[in-house]
């Protein structure tokens, strides 16, 4: 009951083609991000709390009005954020821990920006064409994989998704001019 794909007990090494490992300067500390998040949450709690207050936070004859529970949730959220803010400011925890280094941020953006563009393109070109562009482009530009390999992988994957969802499972995805031209 054994299948011999790789040699047994041989070392497997996968290298990351994407580059430098010198220490990279920190962009921001965990503490600053925590403070920013607490402030954002506080703002969110205030906005949502106000909206619920408008809806009605009172207690009608048959129990709480629709805004009642969410309003008090906002109060708890605001309280917890203020408390967290206080703790972070007083204890200075996380002041020395790095939230993200410049190198890390660059890599995260390398992933996030294409994903964002993919979502934009999906609206114009349909999901399948956009996914082909995302996969082929990402492999080629970010992963530095040969162009022909990237294009083939992107094409095969998108086609497989199309067959699986559109044809086999009847799950409808956004489609664009290409699919229209092909009659789908």
């Amino acid at each position: 009951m054994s299948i011999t794909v790789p040699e047994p007990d041989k070392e497997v090494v996968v290298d990351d083609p994407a580059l430098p490992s010198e220490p990279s300067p920190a962009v921001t500390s965990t503490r600053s991000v925590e403070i920013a998040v607490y402030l954002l949450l506080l703002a969110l709690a205030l906005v949502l709390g106000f909206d619920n207050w408008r809806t009605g936070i009172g207690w009608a004859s048959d129990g709480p009005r629709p805004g009642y529970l969410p309003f008090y949730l906002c109060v708890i959220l605001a309280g917890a954020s203020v408390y967290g803010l206080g703790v972070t400011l007083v204890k200075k925890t996380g002041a020395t821990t790095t939230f993200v280094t410049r190198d890390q941020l660059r890599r995260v953006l390398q992933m996030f920006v294409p994903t964002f563009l993919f979502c934009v393109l999906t609206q114009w070109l349909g999901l399948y064409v956009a996914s082909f562009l995302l996969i082929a482009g990402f492999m080629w530009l970010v992963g530095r994989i040969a162009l022909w390999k990237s294009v083939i992988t992107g094409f095969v994957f998108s086609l497989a998704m199309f067959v699986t969802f559109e044809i086999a499972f009847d799950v409808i995805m956004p489609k664009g001019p290409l699919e229209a031209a092909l009659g789908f």
Partner: protein
Amino acid sequence: MEAFTLLLHGFAVLLTWKTLSLMMVGLVLGVFVGVLPGLGGPNGVAILLPLTFTMDPTSAIVMLSCIYWGALFGGAITSILFNIPGEAWSVATTFDGYPMAQQGKAAEALTAAFTSSFIGSLVAVLLITFLAPSIASFALRFGPPEFFAVYLLTFCSFVGLGREEKQKTIISMTLGLLLAAIGMDTVSGQLRMTFGLDPLLRGVNFLVAVIGLFGISEILLTMEERLALRGHSANINLRVVLRVWKGLPRYWVTLLRSSAIGCWLGITPGGAIAASFMGYNLAKRFSRDPASFGKGRIEGVFAPETAAHASGTSALLPMLALGIPGSGTAAILLGGLLVWGLNPGPLLFADHKDFVWGLIASMYLGNVVGLVLVLTTVPIFASILRVPFSAIAPMIVVSCAIGAYAIQNAMFDVWLMLLFGVVGYVFKKIGIPLAPFTLALVLGNRSEDAFRLSMIGAGGDLRVFWSNSLVGSITTLALLLLIWPVVSSGASRIRQAIAGGTA
């Protein structure tokens, strides 16, 4: 023995070619998802959920739960061979699993991991088979106040027993509850927190949030960590398997202890991650030779894997019997039940016998088939890691987008998913736990409904939550759990003060 007859009925439901092949597909996808970094059990299940929308509920849940079992098995492969936990609950497996692989005993370590996973789930499934029906029939007597008390207990135990900073757990939970309240109010029909945005009328879909929080954010995190890996390959043959199995009875105490820990933490919202660490630590503490742990001891693989699987499996017990998920993945499966039009909770056992017992039977069969599958195909799955991450990452992004769009056929959801991806990334990095958020989002409406129905029934009197001994004790227990951290830290401070005074 009624459970036994029903279980046999469940097997009968299961034994069709269609269900069996879906089961295999689910297991293979699950192991795949478990092995791949940047994808895990919860997001694997969430992404693949749309595939099941057009299936009948039984086939759908069988496939999804098999993805879950597969992911549980798969997490161990990368932990042992590459020292990279494919899942958070496999972290403890790396402690002794990777040293074993370095010593050329990778096959033994893998066999030990898979076998103990199997034992852990088996214990948990037995528990579900015999305990869930009685809990469900007991819960049939529950009215809205009782249900609200149980929900409250779930929320409070997260806050009281979680290891994260309390304010972070509370923030995560209130945020989930608030998002659940967005949209049309189910009792009065009024709109809440929609700010005039049409797509918000339907509310924030739970699955969209999950795909973003777990899928997209995990990809961003993996990308940030950069992926170079160095590890071992392994081949499992029958001789090794038999040798490990022959040694198994010697470790029965460890296996039993880990199963018990896992089942307990799975039913209460402690989760597989805590269970695996606790199983490992206790095995180490009770060992005659604790120093040998961490240097490639097979017991160090048995203990966390058994606990993680027992916990992962038993998390389905409260979901089936009460409609309260014991883990993130169970919460997603519960989201699936709602999509298929099934109402999880005690009535499920009465109204949908085929479904429930088909699922339970599939747990037995899925784990047996899964064990054989991973034992025979480890080399293939291990070689997945050689595929460059820059090819896998965009494919996962596409799958996430498909999943998010398919739920309501809305582009808005894809953007929402992206937003949740960023939120999940930041939250994970500053230590705000995501599990309470997931749980709150899926239980939010149900708990609010329960609260307001109890209020309507009692004419707005809060004392309804102490109106009989059952609901009263659950509510009191919940409140006790909530203030538990305060009590315990106060107690230890007093103890310190006394100790300081006498010294």
